[in-house]
């Protein structure tokens, strides 16, 4: 054995940049870097355009006035801002209790049975349903049947459509947030004589508050930016909101309507509305990110 090793030359282990395989490796690294740059580019470009085209239009009038009739100058998007807030609140009021309740069932009560598996599977499937289908669905059962006092298009219908899109996110984050809570806490609470209900409401839910809140904030941000389910449930209104049983304006539908109009004033308002919407959504995202980091400490 020792004889053969003395005959073998000592391999040169130093890195040779000129080798073909090392050159190929560097080339591929360069390509991957290029791909990342291409990935990041749209965000930078979209943000830059929204900031430049929309940021210049920011004024007090933008927030306090109604949009002008087609072809006229001036005006603002006040009704759409309020409308977006109203519709998002309606969606949250429906989706948060239902989603948190469903998440509590999955994390606290189900013991991995077939029903819980089915609900988890259903949650994943529902999160893959295209957003426009939520609009078609609500159109079919609420708008076309005129359930609400004979009114067809309404803010309420829009909010319900958005809540369908929020539901899977809220359920999933509640389920996962509650699963992170240590079982010792539950045993401790139950050990000092708390009931199941008190344990969940007073101990486990508050402990899991941050991950759940993060998920809720993200789902609200997503709902606020949704357009497809609103264009034929909440429709649009050029006036101030007239209650939740009437059509209502929203930023996203305003952007859609005004972007495809052949008038420059309307196009500019679409950019301004995009600015407001994007700033709101990015702020919500950064807030959720901060919440998450806050919890990790």
């Amino acid at each position, binding site marked *: 054995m020792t004889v053969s090793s003395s005959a073998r030359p000592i391999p040169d282990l130093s890195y040779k940049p000129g080798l073909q395989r090392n050159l190929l490796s560097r080339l591929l690294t360069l390509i991957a870097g290029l791909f990342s740059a291409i990935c990041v580019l*749209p965000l930078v470009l979209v943000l830059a355009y929204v900031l430049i085209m929309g940021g210049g239009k920011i004024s007090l009038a933008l927030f306090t006035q109604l949009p002008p009739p087609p072809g006229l100058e001036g005006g603002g998007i006040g009704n759409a801002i309020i409308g977006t807030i109203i519709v998002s609140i309606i969606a949250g009021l429906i989706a948060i209790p239902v989603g948190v309740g469903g998440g509590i069932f999955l994390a606290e009560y189900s013991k991995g049975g077939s029903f819980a598996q089915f609900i988890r*599977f259903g949650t994943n499937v529902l999160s893959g349903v295209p957003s426009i289908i939520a609009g078609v669905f609500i159109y079919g059962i609420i708008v076309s049947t005129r359930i609400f006092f004979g009114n067809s298009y309404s803010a309420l219908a829009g909010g319900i459509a958005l809540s369908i899109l929020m539901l899977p996110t809220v359920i999933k984050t509640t389920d996962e947030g509650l699963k992170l809570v240590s079982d010792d806490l539950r045993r401790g609470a139950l050990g000092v004589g708390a009931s199941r209900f008190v344990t969940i409401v007073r101990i486990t839910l508050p402990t899991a508050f941050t991950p759940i809140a993060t998920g809720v904030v993200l789902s609200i941000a997503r709902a606020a930016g949704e357009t497809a389910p609103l264009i034929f449930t909440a429709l649009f209104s050029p006036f101030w909101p007239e209650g939740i049983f009437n059509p209502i304006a929203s930023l996203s539908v305003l952007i859609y309507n005004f972007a495809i109009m052949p008038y420059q004033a309307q196009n500019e308002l679409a950019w301004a509305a995009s600015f407001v919407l994007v700033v709101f959504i990015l702020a919500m995202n950064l807030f959720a990110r901060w919440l998450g980091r806050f919890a990790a400490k």
Partner: protein
Amino acid sequence: MSPDTEEQYLLRRRPASEKLVDVGFKNLAIALASMVAIVLFAILVVVFWGSLDSMGRYGWKFLVTSNWNPVDDEYGAFTAIYGTIVTSLLSLAIAVPLGVGTAVFITENIIPRRIRDVIGVMVELLAAIPSVVLGLWAIFVLEPFIRPFLNWLNQAFGWLPIFSSAPMGPGMAPAILILVVMILPIITAIARDSLNQVPIKLRQAAYGVGTTRWGAILNVILPAAVSGIVGGVMLALGRAMGETMAVTMIIGNSNNFSWSLLAPGNTIAAMLANQFGEADGSQVSSLMYAAFVLIVLTLAVNVFAQWLVKRLSLKY
């Protein structure tokens, strides 16, 4: 929780009111969880019910004819179905290499951690930009920018059916590009998670036998993570098929069938967004039929994706 811990909870005698609250809360939670199943089922029933009229009248011909004429009550959704499938598959073909390449770039220790994190956050924020804002950007920035290039494609390769028409603003090609932007974050995020799950030992072993970085990535790490990546790609495909606003704003919403990618086209989702508000009578039913086709397509893709992720999860 295991059954033996459960017994300990019962040591204390519980008043009837407490039991009632407990049982009531549990049933409430079950009822709320059931909402998911109920909503999903209701969506299928409502859309199917709404499309019955059109299904009975046009049957299978609805799927293979492309005559969409509300005036004569003639409906065929082939243009939209073709558009849905072509735009989503082509956008996938572009987004997969970009997304997976980015994921490799930000997981494989190529660049400092801080830059990696910045790229990761930026890709996630890109996913948060509303579809309608991307559509606005596509109309006023992207489409005018790429039009000269599309013109060149038409002049140089016009003999190919897919480049046979001159670009005139909105069309399939810009819609595909904006879809790429929308599904890139999904692919990147899922590919990154899958790559992060590949055990460090596999990498160490690969480098230990003297491979280069890309030798390890291509022969060891990517094959180990491929199941998760494929699952993510399928989810992205489902998303691309159902994506509505950005596509509606830039695809041109033409019901005339054309093989050309440079011509205006349509997708099912865009058709719904465009026509539902002012439709009535048999047009509503036909749109519901198209919506039903879209649901079936996206559900099939999503269920297959979930099965794939579960079935092919890492075996290391």
